[in-house]
């Protein structure tokens, strides 16, 4: 027993003396950008030796950790509200910067055999379906905008997320923005009181229901729909065009918003201007302290953020994220320069 113990202690001692003390940045937050973040962190680690430890515990958890100050940076799909920003300020004597990193979108997927891809939906129809007002696929409100398609006389089976999620926040945010009825009765949030439908856990749960159930409709992340080849609907945008979700139409939504992006970068890209903009697009942000106590860490984080805006963006499409448009990258670089290094 003793000998084994001694050996273990010895091995640990030897190992810890070989590995030099490395800079390690701890982060936590959103699950949606986890795939690209882990790719970035891995590449950046190979390049510079700086280690990142990212826990994808969800946007809400990320914000909580940032407020508690247990992490060096956070990540979220829903920007922090005034009260949360205020809590950080009073606790850590520094403000929080929101840096958008990549973009995503929420797509409407459905299961209607014989109808094929590209069902057209208007914001009003989408809201009525999720309110439980439109109950049949051959409702005149749907058929009148889909004259080229033969829609069945079938009940609409509504699926939504049961777990609190940034995807739900974006989707309900969109419905809140386009429908007064939705705004007053349901509202926006990571979990809401759904008027109708069945809840499933995660993108895979919603996609699972839609895949198996004829007549089902659900919402999932663009990345998830692309990877799994789900059919999705084109949505009528602000200018009146029906736009299919794609990397280009999502990036275009951000371009369409550039003039209206506030200086703190906290903006929802919902129902964006621009002919080709997909209306249910969204940023995902990294949350960074403006004034970090450890300046070595601050320097490392700034360098990483700069890299993510240049080389990092090239990896987005391959991992099914929409890259940021040039205009937003410029705004971001200004933001990154605000991080105090002294």
């Amino acid at each position, binding site marked *: 027993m003793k000998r084994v113990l001694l050996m273990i202690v010895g091995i640990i001692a030897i190992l810890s003396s070989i590995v030099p003390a490395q800079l390690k940045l701890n982060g936590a937050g959103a699950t949606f950008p986890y795939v690209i973040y882990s790719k970035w962190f891995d590449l950046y680690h190979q390049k510079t030796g700086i280690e990142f430890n990212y826990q994808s*515990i*969800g*946007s*809400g*958890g990320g*914000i*909580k950790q940032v407020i508690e100050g247990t992490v060096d940076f956070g990540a979220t799909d829903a920007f922090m509200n005034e009260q*949360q920003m205020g809590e950080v300020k009073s606790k850590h004597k520094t403000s929080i910067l929101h840096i958008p990193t990549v973009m995503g979108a929420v797509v409407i997927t459905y299961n209607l055999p014989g109808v094929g891809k590209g069902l057209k939906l208007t914001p009003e129809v989408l809201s009525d379906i999720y309110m439980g007002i439109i109950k049949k696929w051959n409702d005149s409100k749907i058929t009148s905008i889909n004259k080229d398609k033969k829609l069945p006389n079938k*009940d609409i*089976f509504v699926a939504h997320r*049961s*777990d*609190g*999620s*940034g995807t739900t926040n974006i989707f*309900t945010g969109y419905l809140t923005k386009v429908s007064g009825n939705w705004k007053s009765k*349901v*509202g*926006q*949030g*990571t*979990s*809401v*009181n*759904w008027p109708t*439908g*069945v*809840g*499933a*856990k995660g993108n895979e*749960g919603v996609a*699972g*229901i839609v895949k*198996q*159930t004829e007549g089902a409709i659900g919402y999932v992340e663009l990345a998830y729909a692309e990877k799994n080849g789900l059919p999705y609907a084109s949505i009528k945008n602000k200018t009146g065009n029906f736009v299919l979700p794609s990397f280009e139409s999502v990036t275009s939504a951000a371009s369409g918003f550039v003039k209206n992006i506030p200086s703190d970068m906290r903006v929802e890209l919902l129902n964006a201007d621009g002919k080709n903009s997909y209306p249910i697009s969204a940023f995902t942000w990294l949350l960074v302290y403006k004034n970090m106590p450890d300046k070595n860490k601050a320097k490392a984080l700034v360098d990483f953020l700069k890299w993510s805006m240049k080389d990092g963006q090239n990896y987005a499409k391959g991992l099914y994220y929409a890259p940021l448009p040039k205009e937003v990258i410029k705004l971001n670089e200004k933001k990154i320069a605000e991080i105090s290094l002294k």
Partner: protein
Amino acid sequence: MQIINLIKRKIFKQQAGIISVEAPAASFSIKNLLGGKNVGDLVFQNFLRFFASILLLIVVLMVIQMVNQSMPSIKQFGWNFIKNNTWDPVKEEYSAWPFIFGTLYSSLLALLIALPLSLGVSIFLSEFAPRWLEKIVSLLVELLAAVPSIVYGLFGIFVLAPWLRTTIEPALGNKFGFLPLFTGPPYGLGMFAAVIILVVMILPIITSISRDVMKAIPVTQREAAYALGATKWEVVKIILGGAKSGIVGATLLGLGRAVGETMAVTMVIGNTPQISYSLFEPGHTMASVIANEFSEATSTLHVSSLIEISLLLFIITVILNAAARLIVWGVTKKYKGRK
């Protein structure tokens, strides 16, 4: 972390104590010193006492924490938290009744189906089956208990739910649609799927414990009964009488698992907080709502309401436990009295 380290250190010291005592040369003299009491026994006793007290401490700390953290929600909603039906994170209105209902309804229904099934299987295994068959079947039953709940959940989503939706539920709806149990459109996902998954999950627990309890009844009792000319059925009745308290215990364990089951249930139950007796309608349970919403709950009231639900879940478990204990006591007393 600190507590764990403390415990580790303590264990280390204790172990060191035992080792030194067990050395043969030393033990004699120390034993004499303590007036015949074995030091090893003493140390061992305290060692165990320490573990038992840790258990108690954990429960007490848990309750204190839960009550403490659910204070904002208790203050805000009071008893309405249990009475009302709304769960709206946007408008910050929380009440737990649909979740309590869903948990109790699904668990009790599952128990109602699982109990006779498991009793049948365990009676067959302990009294009727040939040895080789008994071995194979018990192995399979125990294998069922070892399947992780997420696997049951996936089975529920991809196999059970579509089958229920296309075959079972329409048929039941046609034939028995007049019963409140079978009304509504066939979704597949919902209370029915959750109950079936729960039955499969608690069946092995109740079965294997009941079988063990029945096997533990002395062969002499069986032989005596047969010698008096009892039929197989009468022998089974005697065995069941003797095994009653064990069976109640097994049932309780099964119910405990059903009440606390999270993953598999949340995957198939449809996660809609509503009160409906129909098996076809989606429902929600206490454990699922905590698992679903906790990670993304940011407002204090939301978090605190979820913690209050966990407190209620804890209370329900305690009540069920206590009730079962009382039943076990009652049964054993009666049994002893008859002797």
